[in-house]
């Protein structure tokens, strides 16, 4: 009979909060990369996931992902969080496991927004991520972590290279194609409006990622320490290589490039964190810079307006990480894992490739179905006129950097009226 371990529980409580912080961090990362007039809308696309995906997860998606079911989908035993109490699930309380997994679902849905910013209407976006969580995230999470067919097959995905990053990256690519490119794309300069936000976001993502990967051990033990350390090491190597690539290509080490390099390193180490040695993590981080870097260069020469390069960062980064897991994994470091290609087990690489392909195919097709379905009911995009005005004012009725100049108060509140009449009464009295 499983019992609750206090140390494990303490670490998982902290990890859950760390991973939750990654979504606001992503809001800053994405928000800085877009233009001033779309910055609030872009940040809200991440923040709103905290709400709607959180609710969707608790109500139904958790059960579909993690309760006992078939090879392709979980059951309905935990619908509405029935049967999710403080009893042990592994060595931590079941409710905590549910909350921890919820934070993953939230950020995965929010990641997709980077491909459709500056043009997708807010309402249809909210509908899309709710449906996507139910129909794409929950099944794929079940395949890999919830006892589904990829888990049975022995695919290694420590913290979500396939479930989170390939899943979100491929969905983002499809969403970018379905939505079409922004009206200014390739015509006028569309450049980041706040690079410090981008750096802040990347820094906070790294911080939160220690909970993402370190917490995926689901315990406070040596495995958590390994995953934690690899999460520190891999991005250091990616940052160095990315900066060098930037330097040799443009003659400058760019800040946006550095921030992107950190995120790509984090993505790539995610599936591998608990299966590879720290030295392998450095190698993995360094290697992972190349495919994503060149995919960004390549993508920006196409008409595919994956605006913030979610596919290059998360899709390609996740794929690189998942495949390298099949190369660099060592049973010496994690007996529950497998040996990879370099350690005499080429079969693992084939399993990894199959997991990547099936998740990518499923995510791509389902995203297409959901978006096409939604577009029958509502228009997904803002009209060009509204796109020109900006999504902050048009979708939210707010500006990121409002001056208040030229604005007239519409409903003065009670206090203001009283203050005003206080001044006016003596003046009126003296006039009589």
């Amino acid at each position, binding site marked *: 009979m499983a019992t609750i371990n206090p140390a494990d529980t303490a670490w998982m409580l902290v990890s859950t909060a760390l991973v939750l912080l990654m979504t606001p961090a992503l809001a800053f990362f994405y928000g800085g990369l877009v233009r001033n*007039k779309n910055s609030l809308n872009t940040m809200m696309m991440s923040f709103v996931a905290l709400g709607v995906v959180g609710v969707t997860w608790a109500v139904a998606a958790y059960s579909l992902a993690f309760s006992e079911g078939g090879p392709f989908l979980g059951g309905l035993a935990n619908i509405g969080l029935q049967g999710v109490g403080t009893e042990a699930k592994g060595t931590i309380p079941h409710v905590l496991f549910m909350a921890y997994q919820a934070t993953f679902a939230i950020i995965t849905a929010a990641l997709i927004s980077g491909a459709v910013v500056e043009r997708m209407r807010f309402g249809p976006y909210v509908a899309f991520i709710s449906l996507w969580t139910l129909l794409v995230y929950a099944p794929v999470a079940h395949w890999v972590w919830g006892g589904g067919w990829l888990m049975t097959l022995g695919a290694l995905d420590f913290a979500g290279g396939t479930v989170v990053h390939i899943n979100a990256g491929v969905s983002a690519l499809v969403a970018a194609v379905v939505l079409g490119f922004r009206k*200014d794309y390739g*015509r*006028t300069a569309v450049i980041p409006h706040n690079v410090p936000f981008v750096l802040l976001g990347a820094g906070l993502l790294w911080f939160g990622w220690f909970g993402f990967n370190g917490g995926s051990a689901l315990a406070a033990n040596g495995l958590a320490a390994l995953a934690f350390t690899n999460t520190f090491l891999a991005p250091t190597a990616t940052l160095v290589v990315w900066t060098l690539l930037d330097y040799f290509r443009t003659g400058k080490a760019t800040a946006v490039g550095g921030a992107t390099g950190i995120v790509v390193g984090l993505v790539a180490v995610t599936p591998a964190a608990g299966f590879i040695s720290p030295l392998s993590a450095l190698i993995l981080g360094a290697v992972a810079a190349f495919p994503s870097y060149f995919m960004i260069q390549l993508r920006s020469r196409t008409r595919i307006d994956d605006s913030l390069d979610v596919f290059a960062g998360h899709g390609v980064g996740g794929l690189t990480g998942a495949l390298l897991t099949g190369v660099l994994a060592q049973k010496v470091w994690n007996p529950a894992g497998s040996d990879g290609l370099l350690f005499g087990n080429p079969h693992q690489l084939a399993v990894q490739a199959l997991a990547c392909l099936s998740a990518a195919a499923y995510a791509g097709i389902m995203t297409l179905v959901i978006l096409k379905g939604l577009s029958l009911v509502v228009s997904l995009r803002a009209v060009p*006129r509204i796109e*020109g*005005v*900006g999504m902050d*004012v048009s979708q939210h*009725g*707010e*500006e990121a950097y*409002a001056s*208040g*100049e*030229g*604005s*007239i*108060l*519409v*409903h003065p*509140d009670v206090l203001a009226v009283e203050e005003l009449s206080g001044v006016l009464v003596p003046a009126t009295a003296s006039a009589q």
Partner: protein
Amino acid sequence: MKLIVAIIRPDRLNEVLEALYRCEVRGLTVSRVLGHGGETERVETYRGTTVKVDLQEKVRLEIGVSEPFVVPTVNAILKSAHTGDVGDGKVFVLDVAQVYRIRTGEQNEAAVTPAEPVVSG
């Protein structure tokens, strides 16, 4: 010799600059301004505070041109700044008494003719 003053939407600026570049208008001044052209009011809400944004952000272009350039310049702006909604802006064409180019002291037509690029000493 005229001074063309145009008030346009900020989100049309790139299109207007492109159109001006195409008809070889090179010298211009751009400023961000606030103004109102009778467009539908925009309402913004911040917690309990609701405001009506009465003055909209606009961009003001000032272009000094010689006579042959007046019509092409005005047409370029009219076409490129047009969306068809209230608030597209205005183009004013003003007579100019005198123009001096500060660098050379050239006057009038010579002062609003683009400088010849310096090829060699």
